[in-house]
């Protein structure tokens, strides 16, 4: 284990990797700061650059974009009250009032410092947790690996969706489409004799169609930038002073970062939920809650620390179980699949040295975020005023060309359109997109595992009930599925008694 830890460090100590980290973080900050361009879309846009790369630089580059984008949104949230990405909404609660009071630079410093330190805590958590997690998931055999897909869906059902039936319909449909193609036994399913589908549904076009197109369409009806707003020129000294202020709120910061890691680890919750929970926690436990929302540094600390540290939690879930938490991690799983890695419980153990390399890079990225953010703060006024009108065709063209570049196949790009329409309908009628994508990712795994089980144990399915981990996964799924039902019932009872 320690050998892997240090060989991982050795792997990333090269100029090339540092170049990827540097550009990645910078691109992430810019993408995060531009309203309408989220980190997930940015990762999808730069995914084609990693087709030819090896696993390590590819992951380092994409995760650097992820890290950068978690802070980028704070710039516009603080300075002009338009969060660059949804996760920065809580930052605007106190950040913008600070700007109105003339303390915008200080708010920027606070957000930057708590964001960088939050990312650092997330990376440290990953470093410590990844080895035990890998060891634990090593105990997962065919039955457990089969159950993971359903566990993921049940978590989403209990957390994300308003309606569990819709979550499961979207997820099961994803699983069904995931089984299209050649089965492990060699039989063809759902291909209609079309050789294009032989290897299964092309994952990247489906993923990007379902995630990116609805976001692009969403942009059409939105106008983020108010043009008469002027971004005040930040002051270097004030930013540093703000950064130092974070250390006055050590306990709040640590609490927020822990909330971020924990909530980030849950699928479908993600960084937006993490920041809101953390902000509410800070508000509820504060000695002067009345000051929250009027421009108080603690509010910014709580929001940004949780926002950036949630990345660590979501990456842990993605690596350990293959369950994506949101669009960013889903595209990262796509990048892993391109590298020939198979998402799921065996992933950590198969590639432990590369993963340690990636985690070291995460650590450096967190440190890199601070100086790069500092530089960006002075450039922000020139970058963030990109109008959404220009953004829509540019994102579309980049994504279309990027998908074409994957296999040099125009069919892949055509597939984006039906999936885009489907994603748009799903979003409109409250079907969680992440459930569908989870099914698509874990469907093939669940399918090949259950075929293996049937062959290994000759159709004796009581094996699911003979293994302790498998039993606890089943029980956990059932509890998670039943939770929303109970919640609905209790809220109905409340309504009746009112």
């Amino acid at each position, binding site marked *: 284990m320690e050998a892997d830890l240090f060989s991982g460090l050795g792997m990333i100590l090269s100029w090339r990797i540092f170049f990827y980290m540097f550009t990645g973080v910078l691109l992430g900050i810019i993408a995060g700061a531009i309203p309408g361009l989220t980190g997930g879309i940015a990762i999808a846009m730069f995914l084609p650059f990693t087709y030819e790369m090896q696993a390590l630089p590819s992951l380092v580059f994409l995760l650097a974009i992820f890290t950068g984008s978690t802070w980028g949104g704070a710039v516009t949230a603080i300075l002009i009250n338009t969060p660059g990405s949804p996760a920065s909404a809580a930052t605007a609660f106190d950040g913008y009032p600070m700007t109105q009071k003339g303390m915008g630079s200080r708010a920027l410093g606070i957000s930057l410092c708590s964001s960088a330190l939050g990312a650092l805590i997330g990376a440290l958590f990953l470093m410590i947790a990844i080895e035990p997690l890998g060891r634990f998931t090593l105990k997962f055999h065919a039955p457990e690996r089969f159950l993971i897909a359903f566990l993921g869906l049940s978590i989403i059902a209990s957390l994300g969706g308003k309606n569990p039936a819709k979550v499961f319909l979207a997820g099961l449909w994803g699983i069904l489409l995931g089984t299209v193609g050649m089965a492990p036994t060699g039989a063809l399913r759902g291909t209609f004799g079309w050789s294009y589908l032989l290897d299964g549904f092309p994952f990247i076009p489906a993923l990007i169609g379902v995630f990116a197109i609805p976001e692009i369409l969403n942009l*059409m009806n939105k106008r983020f930038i108010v043009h008469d707003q002027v971004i005040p020129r930040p002051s270097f000294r004030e930013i540093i002073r703000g950064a130092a202020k974070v250390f006055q709120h050590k306990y709040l910061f640590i609490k927020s970062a822990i909330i971020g890691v924990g909530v980030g680890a849950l699928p479908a919750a993600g960084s937006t939920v993490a920041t809101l929970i953390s902000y509410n926690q800070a508000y509820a436990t504060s000695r002067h809650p009345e000051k929250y929302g009027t421009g108080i540094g603690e509010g910014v600390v709580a929001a940004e620390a949780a926002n950036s540290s949630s990345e660590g939690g979501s990456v842990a879930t993605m690596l350990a179980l293959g369950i994506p938490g949101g669009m960013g991690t889903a595209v990262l799983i796509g990048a892993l699949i391109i590298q020939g890695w198979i998402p799921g419980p065996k992933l950590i153990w198969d590639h432990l040295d590369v993963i340690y390399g990636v985690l070291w890079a995460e650590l450096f990225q967190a440190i890199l975020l601070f100086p790069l953010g500092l530089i960006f703060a002075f450039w922000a006024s020139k970058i963030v005023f990109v109008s959404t009108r220009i953004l829509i065709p*540019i994102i579309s063209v980049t994504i279309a060309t990027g998908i074409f570049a994957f296999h040099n196949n125009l069919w892949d790009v055509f597939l984006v359109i039906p999936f885009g329409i489907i994603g748009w309908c799903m979003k409109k009628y409250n079907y969680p997109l992440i459930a569908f994508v989870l099914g698509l990712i874990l469907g093939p795994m669940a399918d090949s595992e259950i075929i293996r089980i049937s062959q290994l144990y000759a159709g004796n399915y009581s094996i699911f009930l003979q293994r302790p981990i498998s039993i606890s996964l089943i029980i956990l799924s059932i509890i998670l599925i039943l939770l929303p039902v109970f919640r609905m019932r209790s809220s109905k009872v409340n309504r009746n008694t009112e």
Partner: protein
Amino acid sequence: MKKDVKIGQWAIKLNLGEAIFPLIVVVTTALYFFDVRDIGKPSVNLLLARPVILLIVVLSMYILIVFTLQLSKSGKHNGEHNVKGEKKTEEINTGPKWKKPVMYFTLFLLYLFLMPLIGHMISTFLFVLSVLYLLNERGWKKLMIVPLITSGIVYFVFSMLLGVQLP
């Protein structure tokens, strides 16, 4: 997308939009089902697919019934004018909200059809131009410069830097 049907004292609110996704799911699932009907060794090859198909059918029926046909007793408090008001706002919203995305998808499709015919650079130029026009960009300077720069940069990055053979 919303219609009301009254049967006695019950009012059924038809919310056809809710039916779109379950119907897509049911149709594709049916296609899948017919494709794998004659598969060899179904007890192994369809081990996962069969229960999944069954669950999909059950869930989509449930959603179709519960969400598309919102059954409610036509009470006195949420009577006629409330429903009318809802209809009016629907009509105002549906026009522009549907038109632009549909146009966008059509342009996207056209872009992909044209790409092998007239090349990546020219089709990208035309696509960006038309999408900008669709989004009410009317300044002719922007309408020329943005597509030109975009198609140039995208072509340069993918063709030169990444070595992709673009049509």
